């Protein structure tokens, strides 16, 4: 089993998985069923946890295992479960027509991926040829693309819940950036961030529920009373 010690093999696996994460994100852009969007997010988070685990293995950085485990429990398990329950309780299954239609959205997502690569290029120092420095470079591009696409989803979608999903995939991008650039923030910080994400989703969930009760819809474009 020598290939399990070979960092280049680790690099390839990570790049492959990061690519999968990106493909899933682009699929989510075209998706209109809420439950499928939530499941895509869950699979994405699972892949992220796996990437974190592999980076921890090849760099012998044991504290990333904890981050990976937390991602697995919270983002791939608890949050999707909570959001799906929310969807069942408010009985809304489909996103109304987004502002920009699906094919064009996917095209825009593709362009944002390119932007991600251009930005990531500026962090790439070819003079540092050590494998450790190169290991996360592709992943960073994917992370920036995830961040931008999440941002775009939030602008494009009008349901409160899909905006929350956009915010979550933006956070996934950040997590990927954090582990690929620096092999994880210090553990205490990561714990704090996870806690905050969890609470934020709960808060947003409560809000979604209340918006649904008050307006009989989760369409945030109906929130238009407060104007100058």
């Amino acid at each position: 089993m020598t290939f399990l010690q070979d960092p280049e093999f680790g690099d390839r696996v990570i790049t492959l998985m990061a690519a999968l994460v990106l493909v899933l994100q682009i699929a989510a852009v075209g998706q209109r069923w809420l439950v499928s969007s939530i499941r895509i997010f869950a699979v994405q988070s699972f892949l992220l946890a796996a990437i974190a685990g592999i980076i921890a293995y090849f760099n012998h950085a044991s504290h990333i295992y904890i981050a990976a485990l937390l991602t697995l429990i919270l983002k791939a398990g608890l949050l999707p479960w909570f959001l799906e329950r929310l969807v069942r309780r408010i009985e809304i299954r489909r996103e109304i027509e987004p502002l920009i239609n699906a094919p064009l959205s996917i095209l825009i997502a593709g362009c944002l991926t390119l932007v991600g690569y251009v930005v990531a290029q500026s962090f790439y120092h070819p003079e540092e040829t050590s494998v450790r420095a190169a290991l996360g470079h592709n992943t960073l591009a994917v992370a920036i693309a995830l961040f931008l696409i999440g941002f775009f989803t939030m602008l494009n979608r009008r349901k409160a819940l899909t905006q929350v999903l956009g915010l979550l995939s933006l956070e996934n991008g950040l997590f990927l950036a954090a582990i690929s650039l620096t092999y994880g923030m210090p553990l205490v910080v990561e714990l704090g961030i996870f806690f905050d994400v969890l609470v934020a989703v709960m808060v947003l969930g409560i809000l979604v529920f209340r918006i649904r009760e008050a307006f009989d819809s989760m369409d945030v474009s109906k929130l238009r009373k407060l104007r100058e």
Partner: protein
Amino acid sequence: MILLWLLIVPLAAGPLAFFLRRRQLMEVVNLFAFAVLLCLAAALGVRVLRSGPVSVWDGFFYADALSALVVLLSAFVALVCSIYAVGYFRHDERSGVFQEGEDLGGGRAINKLREYYALTPLFVFSMILVALANNLGILWVAIEGTTLASVFLVMFYGRETSLEAAWKYAIIGGVGLSMALFGTILTYYSAHQALGTDTLAGLNWSALVGNASQFDKPTMRLAFILILLGYGTKAGIAPMHTWKPDAYSEAPIPGAAMLAAGVLNCALYGLVRFYILSSKCLGPELASHLLILFGLLSMGVAVPFILVQKNFRRMLAYSSIDHSGIMVLALGFGGPLGVLGMLLHMTFHSITKPLLFFCAGNVQQQLKTDLFREAKGGLIHSMPLSGGAFLMATLAVTGAPPFSLFLSEFTILRAGFSRGYLVLPVLFVTFLVAIFSGFLIHIANLVLGPDPGIPAAETCRWKKSSVVGSALVIIVMGFWIPAPLFRLIQGAVDIVVSGR
């Protein structure tokens, strides 16, 4: 040890209020906790002045003059707001505002009060944690914590409009803070090669600041821009300010005052810490230019909205956008004078803003409207105290002499000229004058004029004493700044200018 007590007191007061059943007890717990907090904050200030930075747990919590100043201001705002809150919520309870919601059960009022008295200490806890955290990641967590605690304050009344405001606040705040988190990660990355540590200390401000000149420059540049956008959203500088008028006009008055005078400082505090790192790493030019741009933009955006404003609570929000613009601009001018102007402005703004909110709250509770059109003017006859104080607070907050904000705005103006700028200070003064006139016309119309025949009100001792108390502080500070406070501000200026 004092740092831990500063955190434990509010953290304990929140859950304690949650288990209490009587209104009086909750009020007592809240007031007592914040009074103790203010004493502790003052003690921290004295200690920092005497013997330099304080830290516990291997530097996990750390307080220098800058943190001590922010802690002191947060504690002051928390105390005056909680004094006012007692009168404000008693009035709400009597007038049956809580019963307007979905169910008419008698337990609803006490539940709402419990919500407020349990959440506010947690909100204050996060504000104190912002200032005391040494680790820039924890700083981010704490700022996010202030958002999460205050979302519930914004949707406190459960009206459709409050939900809308809370949603906007949570989503815009969430996106802004995720940018700030990205900035924090990039800062860690750019420092990580210079410091070579993978441990917790790798994000500690006290460790970073000494080595900032060796950071990776392109990364730090991107990091600062993201931080400026992120914490700028939280401070409400334009064009990320859109959540502010909604949140300030929907939250209950004490909560809104804490958002305007407390959270604003915390967000700017975060920005200042990264400003120090980035100007040591990249030189001050990039940061200065961006800060000046966003500062002037915020002031400029506030002008038309204040001139044509129909709603006096939204007007306060635009005033707060204007003030965060002023502070960011002052930081952009930089140098000892600019930073002094900024920190003086932060101090004076924090003591002045709550009074303005209290008066607006009194007027709104009395007239049951927050529109100028429906208020009809002549408030000085029915509410002599709140009306008079409203006018005075307006003069104070728009920087009319002899009030203290004049002093800080003048310092900022001098800083602008001394840096060799000519057009920018002139623009600064133009915006100030426009805002001054717009604000004064609106409030004068509201307060002065013939008696519309509303029965005289203002019987609540709590509301009166908080208005009189903060008015006295404002008047005294106009003529005399306590020497230790000024030394603390100067210590903070040294930290920002020289990084020590």
